[in-house]
């Protein structure tokens, strides 16, 4: 678990790595970073939860339920993680 501040690149890498575990058949280069992820990748609620749990496990950043709306797109998720890593 890391306690350093995340750069946007770090955050995006973690996001993609976890997504690759959940949806290994998806080509990362085809994902639109600003479009709703569950629509693009046909993620169901369990996939989505696994994604959040995976991000939490790798970054140590907690994602309270009320903040879930930040995690609808990759851009939104990356911004949240960077801000959260600065704040702690």
């Amino acid at each position, binding site marked *: 678990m890391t306690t350093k501040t995340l750069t946007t690149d770090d955050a995006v890498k973690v996001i993609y790595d976890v997504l690759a575990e959940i949806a*290994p*058949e*998806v080509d990362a280069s085809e994902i639109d970073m600003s479009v709703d992820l569950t629509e693009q990748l046909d993620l169901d*609620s369990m996939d989505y939860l696994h994604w*959040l749990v995976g991000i*939490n496990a790798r970054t140590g950043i907690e994602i309270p339920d009320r903040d879930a709306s930040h995690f609808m797109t990759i851009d939104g998720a990356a911004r949240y993680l960077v801000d959260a890593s600065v704040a702690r």
Partner: protein
Amino acid sequence: MIDFKLPSLGADMDEAMLVGWLVSPGDQVSRGDIVAEVETDKGVMEVECWDDGIIDELLVEPSSTKLPVGTPLARIRATDESPVAEPAPHREVTAAPEPAPSREPVAVGAVAGPQAPAPPPPHVTRHVSPPVRHLAHQLGVDVDTVTASGPEGTVTREDVRRAAGRRRVSPRARRLAMEEGIDLSLLSPTGPDGMIVVADLTGLESKAVDGAVEVADREEEPAVPPEVPARTVESELPADDPALAMRRAIARSMARSNREIPQYSLVTQIDMKRALEWLDDANAERPVTARILPAALVAKATALALREVPELNGHFVEDRFEQSADIHLGMAISLRTGGLVAPAIRNADTLTLDELMAALDDLVRRARSWKLRTSEMASATATLTNLGERGVGTAFPIVIPPQVAIIGLGRVMERPVAIDGMLAVRPTVDATLVADHRVSDGHRGGLFLAALEQRLQEPEKL
């Protein structure tokens, strides 16, 4: 001496290939230990043993021969028996047909006996987490002798598997390896989570491998071009072979359902305001690792409602309904690569909501990585299918034989409702029961839906 037989694999799956053993003669086993892996049209599954004892003899070698359910696979000596050789009755040969002389089919997994353990690394502290220790126990590996490759002397799952001589292999890679006689233990896996994928096999053809099993030259182009990076596993489960096999299995089951089961359908609209508000409050306090999904809440409510209408819970076999005292709720899980499995959460009505959520989470993870168990695949007494997430308003599912009921949920939608004579807007969901009319009638089916609705109005009691 107990015969360990190939157990039931789920509806309409009467045969399977034995793809690997996780135990050897002389190993101690307990009830519930996973002892082998088999492959059916619905993919690879783990087989548990139901007895305590010591493995006396493995009767069948892994091969591509399809074995019928009930085939004796091994003999287990109860711990109080002495290991005297019994006069064995003549057994049918169940090994693979003889392959071409230049190829030697090599079993995946340790059959010949335990591998010599690597000496422990000197001067390094070792960390072995409980799940890794459990895996080591399951695979018959002495975890203290496993070489740790993780950071700071951590023993990883891959370390344990390597020590057990067993690798996680995608179904397509496994079949290819068996057909081509490739020794999987020689490969470095490049798939996700240390899984061997087809790209790892095709790379092998262009190398000379010393002392290894000879790989016959392939005449046609490999299905996966060698330059495809292993991470892109989209070709692992395409529309041929395993996915097609699964489709055939589903087709058989659904065609049988249509042919044999006179099905009636009932729908009711359930107000979900209380349930969802309660869940939001509960989840607000919880870390992401303990979050509960609406699916778990609905599953618990369904399991409890089934207690009230037991003629929806059981199997119809040979013209007779066998009501089940236990409620093993099948959960329909769609696989990203195509296809559907509906393994059971066993005794779902007895689990707490947290336990049920954990069981569902575990089931989904294992369904997607081909690690479901035959006991889960064969034991559902009724099934729940949640179709709302992709926008379905009202579901009309089909009963999965030999079950007699299936419950489908559509999308939670804000709808206008009348409450105390006034118009309100509430989140509501259509819940459908489809059931076998040979066993239950609409009145009883209706009571079930009423019970389900009632449970979801009191989420704190779930």
